């Protein structure tokens, strides 16, 4: 029904104020660190790069850096690795240096961005209309890749489901609804009005889509998407019990990146063993 990955949002006005080119967002981890440092102004409560306290925010950095949460068979944790520790250290440094506010949820960071107090952050496409409505001069583009150019970003989407207790008529009605939704005109209207990226190959070729300011950026970024924790139903439990609390502790400076990576891996293995 819908497919999206994550994108870098940045405040073009704040970029100009800091002497950076608003058309040139950071492309690598190093550039991200550099730009975030320049864009953090403590006296003005301005944050350079926001990271919400949810472990899902580690994923794109971890993947780009060559690491992963689980092994290929999805039977064991693989996150107690040097790649993970590097990424955790980078994120913790952002928190300890005041580049990102600590303890914020994604929604609170949205507010900060719209209030003009956050220069950059990573989010899905759902804030595009919010930015437009608030007349924010925002840029949107690819998430910074690793220094060697490797880029992989968590993808997601929405799905429709029909309950097993639905009658035949209801099932047919649902089918008709999906048929309507998946028609070219509806998909095009949805993406143009909402900013959500187009995933249908047919619609990607449409002239209006190709010329649309937002869609021309988002379309080509689909190929960097990858589903996190695919086929791991215990994902929600892992996140709630271990990954999120541990990431929170890391960002508050209570544990080291090495400890964090190890306890996260132990936690994941504990949950997977209970299968």
């Amino acid at each position, binding site marked *: 029904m819908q497919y999206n990955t994550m994108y870098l949002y940045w405040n073009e006005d704040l970029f100009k104020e800091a002497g950076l080119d608003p058309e040139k967002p950071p492309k690598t981890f190093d550039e991200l660190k550099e730009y975030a440092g320049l864009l953090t102004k403590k006296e003005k409560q301005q944050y350079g790069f926001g990271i919400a*306290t949810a472990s899902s925010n580690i994923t794109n950095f971890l993947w780009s850096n060559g690491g992963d949460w689980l092994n290929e068979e999805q039977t064991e944790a693989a996150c107690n690795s040097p790649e993970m520790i590097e990424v955790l250290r980078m994120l913790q440094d952002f928190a300890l240096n005041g580049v990102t*506010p600590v*303890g*914020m949820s994604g929604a609170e960071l949205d507010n*900060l961005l719209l209030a003009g107090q956050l220069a950059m952050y990573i989010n899905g496409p759902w804030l595009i209309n919010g930015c437009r409505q608030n007349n924010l001069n925002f840029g949107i583009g690819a998430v910074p890749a690793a220094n060697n150019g490797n880029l992989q970003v968590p993808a997601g989407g929405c799905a429709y489901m029909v309950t097993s207790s639905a009658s035949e008529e209801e099932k047919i009605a649902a089918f008709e609804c999906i048929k309507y939704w998946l028609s070219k005109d509806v998909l095009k209207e949805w993406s143009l009005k909402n900013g959500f990226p187009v995933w249908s190959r047919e619609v990607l070729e449409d002239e209006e889509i190709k010329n649309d300011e937002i869609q021309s950026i988002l379309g080509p970024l689909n190929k960097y998407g990858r589903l996190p924790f695919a086929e791991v139903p215990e994902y929600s439990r892992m996140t*709630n*019990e271990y990954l999120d609390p541990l990431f929170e502790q890391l960002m508050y400076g209570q544990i080291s990146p090495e400890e964090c990576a190890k306890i996260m891996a132990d936690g994941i293995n504990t949950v997977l063993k209970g299968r």
Partner: protein
Amino acid sequence: MIKSLNAYFQKNEVAAWVLLLPSMFCLAIFLFIPLIMSFGLAFFDINIFLKDAKFVLFDNFIELMNDERFWNALGNTVYFTLMVVPVGVIFSLIVALLVSGNTLFNKLVRVVYYLPVICSMTAIGIMWAVLLDPAIGMFAYWLRVLGFKNVQLLKDPDLAMPLVAVMTIWKSFGQNMIIFVAGIQSIPNDFYDASMIDGASRWKQFFYITLPSLVPVLGFCTITSTIGSFMVFDQTYVMTRGGPMFRTETLVQYVYTRGFIVSPFRLGYASAAAFMLFIVIAAITMLMYQFFMKKEAKGL
């Protein structure tokens, strides 16, 4: 036969029961039956879909005793209560003493102080969460103007719970204040007149007349405040979601999280935790009640 039926329903006790039946029916469905079911569920390992129930007797309780997050939640709840009840009750009493006279101004002030009590805790919690936000909140702004660095307020692990307590006292002191005002106004003026003839100072009047007369009211306010504080959920859920780092997770919130939020939605385990909360509240309430009964009998 109709005449004798009629006579039967005219009897006071029967009429009373008949009139109570609709309310009892609602209470039964929404209160009594769920309460009994909850006590029962605590002895099962059962999930939210009420499938695959296994009778485990005390296993849930034993697991609870070893559960770090349960003790954390209980500790946070006790910490919250220790902040809100003494400060709240004493503050309400002081305010009540100041506004117990029946002037128009006092009556207006009483109304104003009571307004937060009738507002929704969730709405007030959200409003205060925005006010106390370290990045966009008004309090944070003023603290920085005054020169404080590193203002974290609600995101500060040590300050979060005290701030929620302050907000709770602000919201609910009007309730106890009104009850205290009623209590103060019911003290006969003769006592004060007699004491003035004896040359008693205002302090002596307070400690020897007002306070002893208010012991039953004090008892009521303290006990109800304590029970309410132990069941705190709205404020912490809305303002901090139990964070940062579970420092504001209360027992009711833990029950809610275990039973309804985090898979595998262990309703049995959550019910056991709720059962423990019931035991704690019951024990503390009984102790307090004994204390205040003794005070009332002996006099302060």
